[in-house]
């Protein structure tokens, strides 16, 4: 089993995040094969101000001021001259694409399908999408430029060079999606994000304290003799020259209803006499500071007080209430927990009933860790590289009617077994796990018009507090299923 990764062949931001707060995603269409290949060549080699694709190699001196990535849709592979019989070797979900899978997964009620599927129905249906839907232009490539405030000039130069290469080669920009992370990696709804990520076997960098085992390399990278959680390799019949060290990226534009979230935690708090901040934490599984309920069930360790003296939730570290004692978040404990004792960690608190972290909380549904879950343990992991879009909203701010949400990037070695499994089964269905039957993920799940259900066990004489008016908080506004080739794969595509 190979875990020896040629880091110079793997695109950046997969095994390790760039931690750049700014991103621009360019959704592009190729109009002729030769032109598309020219763009690929410019992307691997660099071209004037256009930086070559970033890799997973260690940064030698300073952090670069910007990084570039490339992802290709199934129609994009065809547009770049990949013949049909080769394309057929790619998994069915990827070939069908996000919009088709949304429709098909919801249409079937066979074999346990519940008619919701990926949840892209109603407002979220592909017909309403701004990218990737049936009424949008066919997208072939997604090029991303990652940067930060200080490197805006570099980013603008890269962008100008990229668009010039596109224009010279008949590649059309169809849409552009710009995102920006808020202070301390906060996203809309007011939580710190990007705290838990799979640690892929063979990745560079230090191990982050985490009770979970490393994830097999083959769950994220194709070919090269890696093994996945099932003992095989997701490359199957795809030529190694094309797919070796490649992976898949699901791009999803997820609009967030921040007003509805604020109202939900306030209303629930009032109705059941629970601090709204605790309600918020119970829905996600972490406090806004990123601290887990599993470790800090009663209150966060107070990176900053959850609420300011005026009652507003406190998101900014500069607003620490100095009148109360506070301690910074203990970064080492953020992932050093489990929901159940295991052979490796027998002293871990057994939260089988969800008294600390409800079984239905977003992060527990989507990664039950060592807690009991149906199927193979520690499976269906996913790398998340999402960045918010739209102006920052502080809880309690008035409704400015601006659209905001998450430009989600979900990276995995198999879309069906990882992204789609999470979205379809653990978020929108999950009949296997006790305690969540008939409910859906409170953050990303589809909810019925009469309101969805969330069970919040209290452990006192109130028993389970049942929230039964969950609105749908997240609406899908667009999606693309992409393949992210390794560097050699991009060269191979460009040179064929």
């Amino acid at each position, binding site marked *: 089993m190979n875990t020896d990764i040629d880091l110079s062949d793997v695109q950046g931001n997969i095994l390790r995040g760039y931690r750049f707060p700014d991103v621009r995603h360019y959704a592009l269409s190729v109009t002729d094969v030769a032109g598309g290949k020219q763009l690929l060549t410019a992307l691997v080699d660099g071209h004037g101000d256009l930086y070559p694709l970033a890799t997973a190699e260690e940064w030698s001196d300073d952090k670069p001021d910007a990084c570039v990535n490339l992802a290709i849709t199934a129609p994009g592979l065809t547009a770049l001259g990949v013949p049909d019989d080769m394309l057929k070797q790619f*998994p*069915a979900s990827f070939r069908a694409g996000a919009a088709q899978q949304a429709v098909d997964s919801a249409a079937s009620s066979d*074999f*346990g*399908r519940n008619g919701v599927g990926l949840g892209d129905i109603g407002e979220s249906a592909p017909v309403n999408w701004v990218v990737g839907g049936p009424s949008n232009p066919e997208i072939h490539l997604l090029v991303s430029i990652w940067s930060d405030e200080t490197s805006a000039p570099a980013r603008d130069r890269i962008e100008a060079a990229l668009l010039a290469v596109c224009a010279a080669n008949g590649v059309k920009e169809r849409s552009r999606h710009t995102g920006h992370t808020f202070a301390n990696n906060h996203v809309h709804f007011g939580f710190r994000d990007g705290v838990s990520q799979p640690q892929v076997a063979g990745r560079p960098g230090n191990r982050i304290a985490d009770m979970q085992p490393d994830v097999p390399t083959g769950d994220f990278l194709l070919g090269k003799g890696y093994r996945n*959680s*099932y*003992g*095989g*390799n*997701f490359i*199957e019949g795809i030529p190694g020259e094309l797919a070796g060290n490649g992976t898949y990226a699901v791009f999803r534009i997820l609009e967030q209803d921040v007003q509805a979230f604020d109202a939900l935690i306030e209303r629930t708090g009032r109705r059941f006499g629970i601090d709204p901040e605790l309600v918020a934490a119970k829905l996600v599984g972490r406090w806004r500071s990123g601290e887990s309920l599993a470790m800090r069930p009663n209150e966060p360790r107070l990176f900053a007080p959850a609420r300011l003296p005026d009652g507003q939730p406190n998101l900014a570290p500069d607003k620490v209430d100095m009148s109360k004692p506070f301690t910074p978040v203990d970064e080492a404990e953020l992932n050093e927990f489990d929901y*159940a004792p295991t052979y490796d960690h027998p002293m871990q608190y057994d939260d*089988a009933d969800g008294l600390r972290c409800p079984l239905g909380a977003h992060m527990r549904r989507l990664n039950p860790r060592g807690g*009991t*879950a*149906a*199927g*193979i*343990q520690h*499976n269906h992991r996913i790398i998340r590289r999402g960045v918010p879009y739209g102006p920052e909203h502080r809880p309690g701010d008035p409704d400015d009617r601006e659209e905001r949400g998450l430009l989600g990037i979900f990276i995995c070695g198999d879309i*069906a*077994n990882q992204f789609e*499994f999470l979205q*379809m*089964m653990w978020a929108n*269905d*999950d*009949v*296997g*796990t*006790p305690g969540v*039957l008939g409910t859906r993920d409170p953050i990303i799940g589809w909810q019925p018009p009469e309101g969805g259900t969330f069970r919040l066990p209290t452990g006192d004489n109130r028993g389970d507090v049942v929230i039964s008016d969950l609105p749908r908080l997240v609406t899908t506004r667009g999606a693309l299923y992409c393949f992210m080739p390794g560097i050699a794969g991009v060269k191979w595509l460009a040179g064929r």
Partner: protein
Amino acid sequence: MGLPALSDAHASLDPTGTVAGQWRGDTVLPGAWDGFSAALEGQVQNSINLYLPLKNPAQAMSLVATLKEAGQQAHEALASLRTVASARFVMEPTGSALWVMTVFDGDMGSYLMDFVGVLADVFDAILVYIDGAPPLPVREHAQAYVDFVIRQSKPGGVHSAMPDITVMEALRLAGRPGR
């Protein structure tokens, strides 16, 4: 008309409605059979009735011996998934086909890969006897295996006395929630 002879009764249970062993899984099922289901709307259990025609019925006993050998391993593997309520292997009396019938919680497509993870060796051992088997080993060709199982699965929803109790819930109620 009297009761059909036993052999005829068996033939009429065969999905083709013709003679056991003739059907190879590539014909469209009669509509009436397609709609057959004892499952309740919204019940957590689903079933797979996997029809595996043998290459040669003369090998039926050898396949049965293989299954017996794999019995304990299959048992432990299925238990580890905590989604399979019951599973059984049934050989056609004529030796023409093996039926693998499982009752499980949730969505078939999603959990089939878990079967690859824990039962690939057992499936490899079975599939060498099977006509039209996908490429082996299963681990190396998981996608072809999943397609094959979906193609070879015959409908027929299962009745459950506990339509809203999953395997995990049942284990919990029985006081055996751990792994």
